[in-house]
């Protein structure tokens, strides 16, 4: 079987049959979900061996998603990165506006194969929720999306998109009211409705087989990027850079470069107000190994194993866990992880917009900020590929408030000078939401 876009990692690689990447991964789930999770694993193995599955997915990737995605060089942006050459892998140009659609279409096909009629999913920024709602509309599946209440507010546009697509969106009010709690609630739903429901998990975390399965559906990102950068720059990059929340777009970019030892793999974690402030979601930088949402990986937790509340300006990265393969790559020394603050990410968002005409998602802006820093380290000969995992339309309200881009209400603006009015009227900086 050969496929241009569905390119799972070859047999015999990680994870082990028990779902372990070294010390990380596994399957820590309630007994009530064991049969369902095993069914997903079995169906995925069958699908991998079925040329019809690859054909169907390829067709969708080309004619629905719009793959392959472009690789765009951004020289004006790169001037701010010490002159290194920077290329963006344009997952933002996919249908629905992010990389998430790659995994969603794969799992939606699996859902159909399993004969299930209902799909549930968690979402942080709403990108996975929008992609899932899209696939459910396309395939005629019932769709319920769980989203933390705070995230429904800061990503209101995506809530409207999901509802427009026919999905039910449930605002989760428990815990920190963000992505972690949306996943908890989705698991509770799954336990109760597992007969007819597939949990379309959105990142490379969760119990086995999700970390491997979601990774495989995203491997296309790195496979394409590797081919494209060699065509365009004549060599492998010095580094591949991506943001990491749960880690799906990063693993998608990194994986094809794993055997290329000269290529540094750099994940940019949400540093929030700075890791020293305690208000961040930099799991690999500050966490310790533990179990969250079905697998062993690095986790932000206290000494009693209670998960601590994360913080990031980016709803999609605001998560106290990380996919187990990233934990493995960190401990193996194959990938590096850095924390990028809210402010560095927001400045990079604005810089890319103004220099290249591309408005990135706040999530992806963390990778851009990381690339700016790395470019200065590498110098003029540096060559960097950045995964631009999503577009920034959904973040316009947050960004407009952050940079004071809204016009002041007419009454207040009368006596103020133009610039000051926009900067002060709505408050230049949106502080953390909690």
């Amino acid at each position, binding site marked *: 079987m050969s496929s241009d876009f569905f390119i799972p990692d070859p047999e015999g690689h990680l994870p082990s049959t028990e779902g372990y990447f070294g010390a990380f991964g596994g399957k820590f789930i309630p*007994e*009530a979900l064991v*049969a369902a999770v095993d069914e997903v694993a079995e169906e995925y193995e069958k699908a991998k061996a079925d040329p019809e599955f690859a054909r169907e997915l390829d067709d969708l990737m080309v004619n629905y998603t719009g793959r392959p995605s472009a690789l765009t060089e951004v020289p004006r942006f790169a001037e701010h990165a010490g002159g290194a050459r920077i290329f963006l892998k344009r997952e933002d140009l996919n249908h629905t506006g992010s990389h998430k659609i790659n995994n969603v279409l794969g799992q939606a096909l699996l859902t159909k194969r399993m004969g299930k009629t209902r799909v549930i999913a968690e979402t942080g920024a709403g990108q996975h929720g929008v992609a899932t709602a899209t696939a459910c509309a396309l395939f005629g599946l019932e769709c319920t999306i769980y989203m933390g209440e705070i995230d429904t507010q800061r990503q209101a546009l995506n809530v409207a998109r999901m509802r427009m697509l026919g999905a039910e969106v449930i605002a989760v009010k428990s815990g920190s009211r963000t992505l972690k709690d949306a996943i908890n609630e989705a698991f*509770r739903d799954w336990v109760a409705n597992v007969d007819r429901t597939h949990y379309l998990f959105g990142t490379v975390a969760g119990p086995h087989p999700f970390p491997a399965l979601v990774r495989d559906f995203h491997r296309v990102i790195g496979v394409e990027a590797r081919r494209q950068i060699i065509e365009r720059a004549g060599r492998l990059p010095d580094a591949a850079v991506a943001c990491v929340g749960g880690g799906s777009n990063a693993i998608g970019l990194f994986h094809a470069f794993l055997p290329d030892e000269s290529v540094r793999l750099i994940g940019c974690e949400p540093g929030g107000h700075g890791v020293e402030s305690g208000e961040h979601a930099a799991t690999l930088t500050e966490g310790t190994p533990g179990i*969250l949402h079905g697998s062993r990986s690095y986790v932000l937790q*206290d000494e009693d*194993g209670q*998960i601590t509340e994360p913080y990031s300006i980016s709803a999609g990265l605001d998560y106290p866990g990380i996919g187990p393969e990233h934990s493995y790559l960190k401990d193996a020394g194959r990938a590096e992880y850095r924390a990028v603050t809210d402010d560095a990410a927001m400045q990079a968002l604005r810089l890319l917009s103004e220099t290249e005409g591309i408005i990135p998602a706040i999530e992806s802006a963390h990778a851009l900020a990381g690339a700016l820093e790395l470019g200065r380290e590498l110098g003029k000969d540096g060559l960097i590929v950045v995964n631009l995992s999503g577009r920034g339309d959904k973040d316009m309200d947050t960004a407009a408030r952050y940079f004071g881009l809204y016009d002041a209400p007419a009454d207040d603006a009368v006596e103020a000078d133009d610039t000051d009015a926009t900067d002060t009227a709505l408050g230049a900086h949106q502080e953390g939401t909690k």
Partner: protein
Amino acid sequence: MAGNLELLSSVLAGAKAEGRAALVGYLPAGFPTVDGGIRAVTAMIEGGCDVVEVGLPHSDPVLDGPVIQTADDIALRGGVKIVDVIRTVREAHAATGAPVLCMTYWNPVDAYGVERFAADLAAAGGAGCILPDLPVEESEVWRKAAEQHGLATVFVVAPSSKDARLAKITAAGSGFVYAASLMGVTGTRESVGREAQDLVERTRATPAARRGLPVCVGLGVSNAEQAAEVAQFADGVIVGSAFVKQLLAHEGDLEAGLAGVRELAGDLAKGVRA
């Protein structure tokens, strides 16, 4: 000091000898306060529970419904720590002599240290652990420690568990096996379905159960009628959210809450003897 697995087994056998099901009550530690929680757990036993489970409150209780989530939140906001959970086990057991188990998600045990947790629980007079998100495949490290310290390892089985898994799970477990009456999270339900009885029958057919491992049923049971119904086919009836509700209903008035807990335990104790 060895844990109280044998005490647990003899109490369950004693109920069986009386021709009835045992009554197992659950409350989280630290709820509404650590000292209040100790009194509440003790009140469940004084009211008529044969066995109690002390919950270790968790930040992410994915298998619990809104009632226990609320109690866990209150306990964690009050600052409950694992050492307080252990103290709750110690004091409830010391006051009553009843078998006291700990029910916990796996991550707190993993973080505290598996060996340390088993040693401390046993030293407190604990009878064992119920580990609802630790599947049997990942349980070896815990079972070793539990066995060494004389603690029960209570696994959960679900209506979706296939027969081969039931055999595997019951073979690895000790004390009793916790049969989830339905597919879902904790919380009171209008009725306990036929699913529960089917699961108990299939679980009883496993070699371990035939050798005497008791099968107790939990999830959804909240009143004497339901307890009586479940007692017809199970070795034990497990009640959790209904006890939590008693304390939540009397928030701010611990004495009234404790009276409610005692009264409910008494009703349920009549139910399992009906």
